[in-house]
């Protein structure tokens, strides 16, 4: 059991090293568009 547990963890570590990291143009979680709380002061 100890060896199987070690192998499972080792497999994850190897995956993190070899997996490519894709750069996506759109985030999967949309940023919340926060409007300013106060009106801009007129010059």
């Amino acid at each position: 059991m100890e060896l199987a547990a070690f192998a499972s963890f080792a497999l994850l570590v190897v995956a993190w090293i070899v997996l490519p990291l894709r750069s996506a143009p759109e985030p999967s979680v949309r940023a919340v568009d926060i409007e300013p709380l106060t009106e801009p002061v007129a010059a």
Partner: protein
Amino acid sequence: MEISAGDTAWILLCTALVMLMTPALGFFYAGLVGKRNALSTLLHSFFVLCLISVQFVLWGYTLAFGPSQGGLIGGLDWFGLAGVGVEPNPAYAPGVPHLAFVAFQMMFAVITPALITGAFAERVSFKAFILFTLLWSTVVYAPIAHWVWGVGGWLRVFGSLDFAGGTVVHISSGVSALVAALVIGRRLTKTEPHDATMTILGAGLLWFGWFGFNAGSALAANGLAANAFIVTNTAAAMGALTWLTVSWIHRGQPSALGAALGAVAGLVAITPAAGFVNVPASIMIGLGAGTICYLAMLLRPRLRVDDALDVWAVHGIGGTWGAVATGLFASVAVNGAGANGLFSGNPELVLKQLVAVGATWLYAGVMTAVIVKVIQLTVGLRVGEEAEVVGLDRSQHGEIAYQVD
């Protein structure tokens, strides 16, 4: 019977830890819904904490843990906690006041229906939610808790193992979530998680509270509690690492929300096993949880059920995996009061676990369908279309979560 100061202090502390899990669940869920439903989602969890705190002391506890009526449900002998005092009940927790055991169990009864609220988020009326919670806790939770943990409960006598609630809490809520979502129907529009940071905060607080949930289920400050504590932490970590990795393989990027969901999946899966398995087994259980629950989450849309926050995938399937894994990995070397599992030469335990899983799926599924249908035919289930578009925060409560659009 003598009260142990150490055990009593431990159980009271664990009760407070488990109490924290329900508002933490509110944050976990609220981050996953749209911003027009954040406050109502938080309120669902907070309200369940209040509602079931009263329901449990009046009739929930006696139905779950009272003198057994044929192994199916507790009697009403302890209605309103009559006869339940500071003297320990040796059948449940020798060494701690009976009232401390009640308080600890109360927090389990609180969080279980709160878990289901993730399935019908963003569309159910507040009135229907109140009725559902009260009926479900009485008709579904209490009997299943009695079967598994009550003295004379039929699954306890049968010999299936559930240390901290894989069947009682997670399978029952996960399956009920799927059924409730099926009857209630889909949301008009799907929303994206409005605040992932809130969800990760919620997951962290859930993890913290889960130490009380699992290690507290030893019902004493002892070695078994220490075992439950460390396997809980290990499975949560492994669940998070695995889900993140599987999502990375599948979507090309490691998901932050995936890490939070994976940690919860690992925590769910180790729950029934925490007092029966060792640390290496908890690594395997976390690995299985991160993989199986992720696949279940991918499968759920194909079932055409809008279980909004994937309660079934994480709790129903995670709990099922945990119950089966208990049958695989349990060892009397960890807990002499338990049993050996398949890998310790006892395949019979797997069959017993499958019976417990099947009975819980069936009973929770059927009874939830009945409850939801009854509510649908009486007070109605959903808010109107306009109210759903406006969001439940404004339409149901006249409040908003944020002073920004």
